């Protein structure tokens, strides 16, 4: 029996679901190895007998709460894909504003029709078996994950910061160009794609571990002339770190 796969979306851009369709070279092989039984974006049929459920998007409405609990019940293994599902993602930026204010700002006198709750990752509501972070998730990492899980092995996320990948790629450190980058605190696994295209790491894969954050805090305070509020704003962008001060 092929494993029965479902792909769901909560509050998100659905880019992580789409990233699966962008694995063009091996999409037909994946379809040969699994049975897709529920994927609203791509197919009409829907089944609720699911071995592995992939979910993109944050829990951000009362409806999302109900749906994620339903997905959890129906899925033997539940996998959060992308920053919205693993960390709340960009959706968490609304959490810093007054709820009645942001609702009124966007929906005016119709605000009451659009219920919303503070955005949170799936793990805030249900047990999540695996996390594939990133905005979007790294499609190569998704493919590796599928191979590992289908062959009964154990999946682990990288425990290095993005800096390790920049060094391996021979990318000039952005701090040398005077650009504050979140590479030192962010979990690797993206092959440092943003720095390799000349842009700073925005922390979309989350903080790799607390020690990295502490070290970065000390370095930034003592060695660099940066506004720590800017650093915090960067760390908030994808929900990587939501506290008011650096450790």
């Amino acid at each position, binding site marked *: 029996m092929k494993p029965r796969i479902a792909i769901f979306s*909560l*509050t*998100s*851009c*659905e*880019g*992580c679901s*789409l*990233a699966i*369709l*962008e694995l*063009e*070279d091996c*999409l*037909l092989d994946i*379809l040969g190895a699994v049975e*897709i039984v529920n*994927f*609203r*974006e*791509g*197919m*009409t*049929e829907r089944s609720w007998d699911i071995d592995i459920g992939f979910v993109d*998007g944050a829990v*951000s*409405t009362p*409806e*999302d709460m109900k749906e994620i609990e339903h997905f959890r019940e129906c899925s033997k293994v539940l996998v959060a894909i992308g920053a919205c599902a693993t960390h709340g*993602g*960009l*959706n968490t*930026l*609304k959490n*810093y*504003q007054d709820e009645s*204010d*942001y*609702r009124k*700002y*966007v*929906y*005016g*006198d*119709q605000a009451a*029709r*659009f219920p*919303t709750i503070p955005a949170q990752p799936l793990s805030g509501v249900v047990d999540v078996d695996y996390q594939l972070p990133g*905005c*979007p998730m790294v499609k190569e990492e998704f493919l590796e994950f599928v191979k590992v899980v289908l062959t009964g092995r154990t999946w682990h996320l990288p425990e290095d910061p993005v800096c390790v990948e920049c060094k391996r790629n021979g990318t000039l450190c952005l701090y040398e160009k005077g650009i504050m980058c979140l590479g030192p605190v962010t979990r690797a696994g993206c092959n440092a*794609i*943003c720095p*390799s*295209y*000349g*842009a700073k790491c*925005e922390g979309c894969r989350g903080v790799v571990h607390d020690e990295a954050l502490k070290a970065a805090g000390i370095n930034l305070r003592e060695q660099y002339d940066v506004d720590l509020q*800017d650093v915090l*704003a960067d760390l908030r*962008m994808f929900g990587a770190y939501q506290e008011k001060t650096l450790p």
Partner: protein
Amino acid sequence: MKNVTIDVQHVTRVEGHGNILVKVESGEISRVELQIVESPRFFEAFLRGRRWYEAPHITCRICGICSVGHTCASVQAIEAATSIEISEQSTMLRKLLLNGEELQSHVLHVYFLAVPDFLGVGSVIPLASTHPDVVKRALRMKKLANDICAIVGGRHIHPIAVHPGGLTHVPRAEELLALKRRLKEARADLQETANTYRTLKIPDFTRETEFVSLKTVGNGEYAFYDGQIVSTLDRNPTNVSEYRERVIETVVEHSAAKHCRSAKSPSYMVGALARFNNNYDQLHPSAKDAAGALGLKPVCHNPFHNNTAQIVESVHVVENSIELIDTLLTRRLTEEPLVEPTRFGKGVGSTDVPRGILFHEYELDENGIIVGSNLIIPTGQNLANIEADMRAMMPGLLDSGMSKEEITLRLEMLVRAYDPCISCATHFLDIEWV
């Protein structure tokens, strides 16, 4: 059929969450709604307080399918608000990047979302075994489109290198040469696409409406990245900064996305068919040939032919990309620093993205912090037109002897023909500050 209720919860094979509701009571059509039930995300609210240069990287996350399009509209709006003028090289690279997304989106839509209806299957998956050559061809073109985006912008979903003032990365000449070779090979795949498409029976339905799109008035180029606003009913171009003269938004009860009308019409259509109808003369000769072979002529009022126009545009985009690469290579690619802002104020940017004309508008304070924004999305502009089409189609469908299931499928096909992107559409806003 005197009493019929059609209630499709979460229409499949569209981007985002939408429902179709049609009610016929005693032979009278009482309700026709495309309900938008996507979760609101509050982009306009949480953009407030973020820094000017972040807008493209934040707003591209509105939608995974359209992220290059949002990037292009957003970065142009920020550049207008900061009086940045980018280099010709940067403009050409962004146009090439956007061509990648237009092609990727059109191929995805035609092959993965629309064609299964015509072949009587629920998704592209069964086609992998019954029509493997067709699926492999689709994947080959989609991959080419993604690779264009990856080489120029870092990736298709949420591109990295586009920044106000230019791009943070310049592709290598050999990467562009390799793309050019594959673009030339794609001509055969597009020819086959047109051959396959010609065998499908496109529903015969027309309703006169207004078509709105960008148009390049100056150099005569078929408009995607920038231009001025025109329509089939008002061909005098309007600058994008004056978009409120052409787009009037209204709130409706059943939709998390605002509806739009123009000064001329209660509803209008945007997207590939609108661009085709307004800008046919500016298509590449090969794209005009494709249109001729597919029997598509401007002005076409059958919304199902939006798919046909997507194929015609795909041909254009491939030819235009080859020309862009030739020009870039002749000029020689150079590393360029980002152009710095000279002021912080208000600005509008508009790009004609795969699903139609898209507007981003921002207001910055004196420190470059975003204090207000307005985003008008193609799908939001199409919603009223889709409902008007459904309303006009229903009497014919009810008289045709079709079963309720067949009518439902036809309505779903209509919605899919517009290629709606509902994630995008739920970002409307009543704005006070302008």
